[in-house]
């Protein structure tokens, strides 16, 4: 049992932190990146690629760095800390993770190598209108026309869906869900900026040509679910970085801001609430790193449960921290030009991206009889 980063992981964290803080240390720069096309800074994307950050989750054979969830989590925390708009979660973790999970050797090498080098942009089109975080697809269907797979239906919301290549999940004719690679231009796409600065798209497929990821026509729901679980844990890391930044901003504000002639930190009712924020962040930290280790060392079913547990904890904590960070700042916390409110917005978005606390609690509570007490050391 060891909760510490090794030297290499610490070096990675420092490198990513340095890179990101040089670019986004001034929050105005983040706002500028979000406001410009394509919604993030392509130079920064390239720099992350050069640092090896984009290839971390992929094996060396696939063109990646052969690292694992811990390293990916390290990067995601730093991204969350400065609200970097680069589509790490959507492109690398979600879309890349799906290719890594479903693709053949050849597909993985073809896609993940260029993805790792920052040369290929990828997006995962999985969510469907009216759907709520299911592993499978229903409203987008795949059908075999001749020997070509054709996909039809609507995917929404798709993060950064204006990417060159789409990874699309679709219901298979014989039941189950498969994954497909679709050329971006084969879909009709409209994109917009979500309230947290993320680019989200609606992707309409009308008989678009899809190349099956892996074996055609075999149900990949489980592998899709496993990839989503890994992404859930990484999303928790991003939230953790955001929570830490929100807490830091809040304590800094309480120390420096004066009201009624004294610093806000004089008001015990406020400092106690900051203490509760700290408690929530610490507990989440433990849970998220634990889940990351489970994802590294255990099987898919253990990882699902760990992902749900981490996501539940982070959902609760993120709401508390986000809401209190704004409240303890007062009016300035509501403004777009100040980081704290934007962190709260992003925490809210992350919470609803891959399953909120209530969703995971429902799932966890269904398995209650399966054990007496949880033993993380077992």
């Amino acid at each position, binding site marked *: 049992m060891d909760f510490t980063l090794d030297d290499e992981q610490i070096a990675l964290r420092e490198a990513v932190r340095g890179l990101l803080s040089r670019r986004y240390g001034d929050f105005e720069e983040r706002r500028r990146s979000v406001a410009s096309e394509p919604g993030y800074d392509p130079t920064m994307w390239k720099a992350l690629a050069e640092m090896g950050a984009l290839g971390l989750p992929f094996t060396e054979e696939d063109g990646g760095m052969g690292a694992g969830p811990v390293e990916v989590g390290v990067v995601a925390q730093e991204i969350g800390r400065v609200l970097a708009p680069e589509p790490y979660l959507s492109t690398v973790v979600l879309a890349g993770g799906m290719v890594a999970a479903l693709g053949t050797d050849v597909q993985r090498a073809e896609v993940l190598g260029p993805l790792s080098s920052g040369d290929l942009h990828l997006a995962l089109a999985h969510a469907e209108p009216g759907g709520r975080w299911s592993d499978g697809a229903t409203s987008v269907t795949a059908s075999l026309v001749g020997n070509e797979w054709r996909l039809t239906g609507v995917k929404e919301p798709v993060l950064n869906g204006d990417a060159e290549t789409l990874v699309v999940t679709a219901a298979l004719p014989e039941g189950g869900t498969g994954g497909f690679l679709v050329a971006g231009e084969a879909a009709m796409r409209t994109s917009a900026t979500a309230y947290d600065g993320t680019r989200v798209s609606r992707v309409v497929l009308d008989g678009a040509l899809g190349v099956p990821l892996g074996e055609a026509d075999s149900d990949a729901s489980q592998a899709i679910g496993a990839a989503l679980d890994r992404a859930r844990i990484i999303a928790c890391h991003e939230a953790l970085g955001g929570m830490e930044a929100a807490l830091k901003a809040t304590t800094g504000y309480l120390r420096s801001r004066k009201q009624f002639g004294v610093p806000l930190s004089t008001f015990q009712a406020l400092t106690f609430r900051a203490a509760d924020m700290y408690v929530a962040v610490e507990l989440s930290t433990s849970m998220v790193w634990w889940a990351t280790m489970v994802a590294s060392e255990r099987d898919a079913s253990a990882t699902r449960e760990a992902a749900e547990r981490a996501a539940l904890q982070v959902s609760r904590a993120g709401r508390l921290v986000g809401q209190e960070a704004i409240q303890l700042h007062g009016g300035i916390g509501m403004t777009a030009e100040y980081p704290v409110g934007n962190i709260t917005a992003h925490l809210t978005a992350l919470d*609803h991206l891959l399953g909120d606390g209530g969703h995971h609690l429902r799932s966890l509570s269904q398995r209650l009889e399966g054990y007496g007490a949880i033993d993380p050391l077992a």
Partner: protein
Amino acid sequence: MRLSLSAEDRAFRQEMAELFTTVVPDEVRQTVLSGGEISEEMFRASQRALNDAGVAVPHWPREWGGRGWTDLQRHLWHEEMQRAGVPSPMPFNVSMIGPVLIQFASQEMKERFLPDTASLDIWWSQGFSEPDAGSDLASLRTSAARDGDDWIVNGQKTWTTLGQYGDWIFTLVRTDPTVKKQAGISMLLIDMTSPGVEVRPIQLIDGGHEVNEVWFTDVRVPGENLVGEVNQGWTMAKFLLGNERVGVAPVALVKRMLARAKEVAGDQLEDPLVRARVAELENELLALELTTLRVVAHSDGGEPHPASSVLKLRGTELQQAVSELVVDLAGPASLVPATADSDLPVWARRSAPTYLNYRKASIYGGSNEIQRQIIAGTILGL
């Protein structure tokens, strides 16, 4: 103890319900009921219609358009208005500067301003908060210096809600920097088209533009625009803030939000956890509504009922809780902007910005910390 409304109040309630659905433009009401954004024109048209129907300023003295209603009737008026989807008359006009002018202004000033204030022909902005003052209002710095009969105003106000539509702004300004901070403050009415007044938008985290900074650079204000006496501003400010008490709990609004949440929840309402969450919120909201009724049914003429202090605190908490519920009902659809080309329902796409926007409710207009301080200090004697 009597549960039912009197026959008279029941008839009154009915009358209000009918009036609101007939005199106020349907477009305005439908926009409100569907959770849409109300334009400046809609605000103005709606209040003009209310004023023409004699129900924009019922709590003012009769000579200025008031109706002499009981607090309970005013409550019913307000609740039915909310229920009908009619925007409340602009509070800056009817609850803030109007009553201040009625109480403190000269007859001449009243005649000049009150009719247009009631009809929203003058849209008032509030110039109280400053960047370095926050909840400590009395430490404001915007200065007004004498220049002959005029005042020269310099400084900055902030968090000026809907200031972009304002015609006039009522401001607290420092007219005597040499005395104790509360003692040197006056209230000045400023035409927002005066040279040197600049309104700068503040973008909020929900993407909306609802508040503003208002900058004053050597703005010349005629001496006749001073309300009451010089250095009497703090008294007026306290009077104004004390007036906010009735109807501050947005009960009808939150009820409408929650009823709408039940409608849009669809299948999710089969989930016992969702049902329990809704039922618990409904119960909390009923307790708040009943407390409001307790307060308004017994506050005529006397001191404010002590329970009135819980209304804003609890009202904003519940408003926030319901808005959070709606985001959760929306789920992943909450990530899609309302303006996007999308198959997803608009309520779902508005849910997250609305939730973020309502975080302000516990900050503006006397933060919940201030409310707790009032309860602990004034009511509990701590």
